[in-house]
Structure formats: C-alpha cells, structure tokens
C-alpha cells in the first residue's frame, strides 16, 4: 500500500483537478447569473487541446521542453505529498523545502517557455509571473515552516499537519488568515491573475503555446490549484481526520471542494490588481506571515 500511495495520489490529482476547475467555472457562472458550462467541461477542453496542432514559433528546445517540465514538476509534487493524511513511501525522502522548490521549478519552466516564445506579451507576462512567484513563495514557505519550527521537523508528514491538536495557536490562526488572503495569488485567480491577464496580455506566458503544449500548461495550472486547496485543508484543518484512509480522503476532498467554492467566490467578485499594487499587498502578507512564524517560534 505504501508503495502504491504515490500512484494513488497522482491518479487522484490527475482525475479530479479538471473537475475542481469545472466547479470553479460553474460557480463563477452562477454568480454571474449564468447557467455555465457543464462540470466536465475542463476534461473536454484538455482532450480537445491534445488533439490540436502544436504551433511552434520558436523552434528551440527550451520552448518544447518547458510545458513538459511544468507538468512534471507539479506531478512530482502531487506524488510526494501526504494525501488523505497519510505519508507515503516518498515522504521519508522529501521535505517541504523540496516541495517549495519543485513548485518553483514548475513556475520557472513557464518562464523559460515564455522567454523562448519570444512574444512581447509573453515576456511581460513571464516577468509578472516571476515577480508574483518571488513574492508569494515566502508566504507558501512560511505556511509550511510554521509547522516545521513548531515540531522541529521539515518532513512532509510532520510539518504539513503540524497544527494538529494542541499546537493550534494564535500563530496558526494568523497564518490561516494570511494563507486565505494569498490563496488567490497561489492559484493565479482574480485579483491576482496578473501574469495571464487575458484582456491586456492575452494569457501572457502561454500566448505562443497551442495544442498539447497548452493542454499541459492548463493541466499543470489545475493541478497546482488543487495542490493549494489540499495544502490549505491539510495544514489548517488537520482535525478533519478519522484515521481511516478512505474516509480521510473523502473528507479531505470535500473540504477542498469548499476551498474551491471560496476561490470561485473571491475570484468572481474582484477586479484584477495591477502588479505594483499586488507587490505591495504581498509585502504586507509576508510581514504578517513573518509575524506568525515569529509567534510560532515563541510557542504561541
């Protein structure tokens, strides 16, 4: 079972990430008084994209390589995390720093791809993406580190559900708030879909990608937002646990569903921020997260 667990993780992620995306789209539609697409629409989108021609405007290997790497990085993250509250065989060899870096690797490959695409819009998008990544990565890191400093371990199994039981303190509450405020930035939704900015940048870094390449990026984005929903649930709601794996899994997925509702609600009731405004906003969040970690170290 322990050997199968990474595969189960990957399978669940691959299978459900588009569904959650569908939930988001449906919810957005409802808020806009529309009927909205069917829940399974993202699957169709991905499938269709796979069947489409891949246009290559760069003709260089970084351009073709980037989508594969972006997808692979996030899939690797999905494989190692303790999904359903159970650490799998890989968790013993990985820790949260690795997860943070792997996520960064996924983001970086988007950048490499955008730069290879040579499109002015892609490059603006990429540079905004990078700025966002630089500014929100510490928040993500501190979310995980808070648990780490409390328990003195950076391991995935320990650090992620650190807030369990008695150690849930002021610091965790503060960090929860920060995480919620940064959630939209993690999943690149409004008001922080600054890098893709449909209206001005035409999907930014992805502007040159089509067909299967674009499908991989899209898929990677969906996986990423599922990861962040999972992270929220398992870091801040660790008490939703029974110890029975299938049940835990189900509870976790339900809680993630709720997180997605929240993402959808916030995403559809806010305008996009400008990158300079967003950077200032992130800086405040970083400060708050630092305060939370400080409190955590002092034992609150």
């Amino acid at each position, binding site marked *: 079972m322990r050997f199968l667990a990474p595969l189960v993780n990957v399978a669940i992620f691959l299978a459900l990430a588009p569904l959650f995306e569908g939930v988001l789209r449906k919810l957005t539609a409802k808020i806009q008084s529309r009927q909205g697409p069917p829940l399974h629409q993202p699957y169709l989108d991905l499938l269709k994209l796979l069947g489409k021609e891949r246009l290559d405007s760069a003709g260089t290997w970084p351009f073709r390589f980037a989508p594969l790497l972006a997808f692979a990085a996030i899939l690797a993250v999905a494989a190692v995390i303790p999904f359903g509250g159970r650490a799998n065989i890989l968790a013993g060899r990985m820790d949260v720093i690795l997860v943070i870096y792997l996520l960064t690797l996924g983001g970086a490959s988007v950048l490499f791809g955008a730069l290879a695409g040579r499109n002015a819009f892609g490059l603006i998008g990429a540079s905004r993406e990078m700025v966002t990544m630089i500014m929100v990565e510490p928040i993500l890191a501190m979310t995980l580190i808070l648990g780490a400093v409390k328990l003195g371990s950076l391991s995935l199994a320990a650090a992620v559900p650190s807030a369990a039981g008695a150690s849930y303190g002021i610091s965790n509450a503060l960090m929860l708030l920060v995480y919620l405020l940064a959630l939209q930035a993690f999943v690149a939704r409004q008001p922080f879909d600054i890098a893709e900015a449909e209206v001005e940048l035409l999907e930014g870094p992805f502007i040159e990608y089509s067909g299967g390449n674009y499908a991989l990026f899209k898929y990677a984005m969906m996986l990423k937002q599922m990861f962040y929903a999972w992270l929220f649930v398992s870091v801040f709601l660790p008490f939703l646990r029974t110890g029975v794996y299938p049940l835990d899994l189900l509870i976790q997925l339900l809680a993630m569903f709720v997180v997605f509702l929240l993402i959808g609600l916030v995403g559809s009731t806010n305008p996009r921020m400008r*990158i300079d405004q967003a950077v200032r906003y992130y800086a405040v969040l970083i400060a708050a997260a630092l305060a939370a970690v400080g409190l955590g170290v002092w034992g609150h």
Partner: protein
Amino acid sequence: MSTNRIISSLRAEFGEAVRGSSSPAAGRLLVDLDRSRLREAARFLINRGGRYQVGVGADERDRTQTFGLIHFFAFDRERFSIGLRTAAPASDPTFDSITPDIPSAGWTEREFRDLLGMRFPGHPKPKKLITADDWPDGIYPLRKDVPYNLVPPSTADVAYQLDEAPPGTTIVPVGPFHATLHEPAHFAVYVDGETIKHCDYRGFMAHRGIEKLCQTQVSYNEVPFIAERICGICGSVHSVAYCQAVEMAAGLSISRRAEFIRVVCLELERLHSHLLLIGVAGHLIGFDTVFMHAWRIREQVMWLSEKMTGNRKTYGMVVIGGVRRDITPEMKDEIFAVLKNLEAEIASFHKAVAGDSSIHGRTKGVGKVPTEEVVLWSLLGPVARGRGVDIDARRDFPYAAYDEIAFDVPVTTDGDVWGTIVVRLLELFESIKIIRQALDKMPSGPVLTEYGEALPAFRTGWSIVEAPRGESFHYVLTGEENRPERWRVRAPTYTNLQGIPRMLRDNQFADFPIILGSIDPCFSCTDRVAVVDRRSGRKRVWTKSEMDRLSRSRS
C-alpha cells in the same frame, strides 16, 4: 459673445481677409476667409474660448476649381458654432497647418492629406493616417475623378514608419486583433518597464470608404441606413445627425412627434451604450461579474428597442422627414414598465459598484488629464465631463425635442478614469428621466413629414448631436442628383482618440485597457469618413497604365 460680435471682431482683426459670412440656421455661422490668415483666425477663435470641432475638406474643382476647407469651432457657453471656410486653387491645395496651435486638428489635416491630396506645411506629424499602408500616394480616393471602387495596386515599400522610440523603451504591439480592442486598430505602445512613455496609433483599418460607394448608388434616404452602420452602438445618433443636417440645409421642418420619438431612440441608445461601456470597463479591469451584470441589465433595453424599432440597435428608425415607426400607446406602456424595472436594477447595480474600493484601486488616479488640457485636446462627452469640463450638446445646442426636456448634466472633477465612469453611471438615471418626459410630453401627429419637391442643391447644414461618447458632428452640403454633394461625419471618438497618448503617458501598461476603454473607443466611427459626394459628371475609368504612372509619381 454673440454671433454678431464674433463676426465684427473677426472683421476688425482680419479686415479684408474676411470675405463674407452667412448663417444657415440659428446658432450656425459660416465665415469666408482668405487662406493666408487661416492659422491666425483659428488661433483667434481658440483664444476667445472656442473649441475646435473638426475640419471639412472637399474637392470642388468642377464647381469653383478649388479645394475647399472649413474648420469648425464651437462656443459652447454662447451656444453657437462657427465655420471658417477657405479655399485653395486646384493647382496648389496647400493650407497652413493649425495643428501646432490646436493639437486636435492633427487628424483632420492628415486625413485630407490622404484623401484629397491637400498639403499642410507646418504639420508636426505629416504621416499617413487613413489609407492602407500599401495604398499608393498620388491616388486620392475622395477626389471626384477617382471611381468609388478603384483598387490600385500595392506599392512596394509598405512599411509604416512608427514614431521614433523614446530612449530606453520598447514597443508592445497592441492590435489590430487584441482582446482589449474588439476592433481593428493598432497601437504601438512604448513602454519603459511597465510604464507607458508614448503611444503611436495606426488605425483606420475599419475605413470602409462609404462616400465613394454612395457616389453612384444611394440617394438621400438610403444614407441614414448606411450612416447607422458607421457605428454599431450609436447608430441612431449618426442617422439623426445626418437627417438633421440635411433638414437644416434644406430648410425642412418635421413633425414634433417625430422629434420626440428621435429623442426616445437616442436616449435608449445612450442607456444601452453606457451600460455596455460600464460592463466592458469591468471586463477590462478583470472584473467579469460587473460585465455580466451590466450586460444582463442592458439586455432589457435591447429587447425593448427590438420591439420598438424591429432591430436590436434601434436601427432603421430615422429617415429624413421624421421616423419610420410610431410609438403606439401599448408600446408606451411597455417602455414605462421596462424603465421602472431598469431604474431599480441600475440603482442596485450602482450601489454595488460605486463604493467598491477594489474597483477604485484600478480606476482612481489612472489616466489623469488636467482640465486645461482637456480643452486643448477637444475631449468630448463623458471623457470631458469626467474631467471637469461641462459640455453637453443636448443642452448647449438643443436639437430634436431636447429644448422641452429638463435634465441635469453630471460633471465630476476627478480627472481620471473613475470620473468618466461615474459620469456615465449618473447619466443612466438622467436618460431614464428624459425618456419618461419625452413620452409624457409627446404631442400627437404624423411621424413622417411628406414633401413633394426635390431638395435644394448646394445648401450647407451641420448638426451637433450628443452621442453617448460625446458630440457627433455631421456636415452636409446638399447636391443635385437626389444625394448629398458632401457629407462629413466626425464621431466623438475621432477627437477623444487623439488624446489617448496624452492620457496614457506615465501610466502602467496594465492600465492601458481601462484607459483606452474609458473613452469607449469606437474605431469604426472614427474610421468611417462618410462623405457622400455627388456623382461626378467627369467620372472616368482609370486604365492600368495611368494607375501605374500615378503609383510611380509619388515622392
């Protein structure tokens, strides 16, 4: 200052250069001027509080062997509009450029450089404006000897020279197919980092050459249907403005009821246009929910106008002499019902949006232009009213039935994008008020005035209509063969768009969509050049060799 006083002061200032003057209607004045004093006279009018409206150039070689040029100025406080009419001999169509003094005249002059082959020495940016990049110089489509469907061969060097880049900037090419635009126009945005330093516009890609089309086919009363299609949003504005210009030129008076129905059409159009813009503005700052709900509310207006006029855009309603369809009592009730619902919906929408600090964050302080510069660039409509300039043609140059209707003109002094949006939100309520009054005060009577005689030829009229985006200006010179000799349209976007580089300067690139969106740009309006010319007696078909010769003779 009255019209008499401006004439006498012009005479005093320029003496013999003022050849004569006429007044085709109340509040309209035409002054004939020697072309050597044109620039001074333009500056004279501007210094006395005039606002530059537009220039009209015409090929009058078959009548007077000249190229004519009229610059129009509006005196909004004093409620009159004055045209400075000059002419240049056919052999030397050169006029002094007034652009150095009046930046908003820049396009007019470039336009006639392209279309009539006029020359404007002293123009700061004498570049191509209207014709396609590969259109050969030396063929001027508005000249009467060029057939309407002439398609000259491409010239070899087709690249348009963009403006010199300010140091340290690169270009972000926006358009013609870009999610912000929805219409083909190209903006070369020069950015330093993310900050916009300069912007070059290469538009007029939706230029459809309506005038030459009309040269052979269309008569007076088909023009309104084509005029409506100058713009898909403010269609009625153009047909009303055209019809009013013809009616003014020909001295026709139409029934009062028709005038009230025109007001209803115009205001319905303003309602749907403003809701559209507010929605689009939401979309442009990435707030799609605002877009969806604004358009959901707007849809009622569309349904209403579909019921009223038979087309979702109030198309096909206005003709010379009145309107085509009456408003029946049942329809009147229905309009009232829809208005009631609409008012409630807009009010709750207004409440939900107006106080949202996240929207303020994207719109306040963005695209700021000081009030003095607004006048200098002749910005119009909500773009000007949102920046503290109180102009509204409905009040300043009353037309149709607006003289009988009481309404407010909302003005804010924010000077930014948010101001223009607030003005539009408030105008929605005013429009509802106006429609209610119009329906109440509407007298009975016929809606279409019949008249038996052909319209008199070579009379001038120009009408000013407040479109949702600002003042629309139509100039008509009536012609002989049941169609206008010259028809010139200046849509509000034509001048507002010229101010865009000024509004963009030193803003973030992320604000480009909303700044551009805040003028509610309508490139098709701008690009129309709807000038109807009388059928030329000397029409001739160009042979290939002649065309080749012309193509070579440029430069």
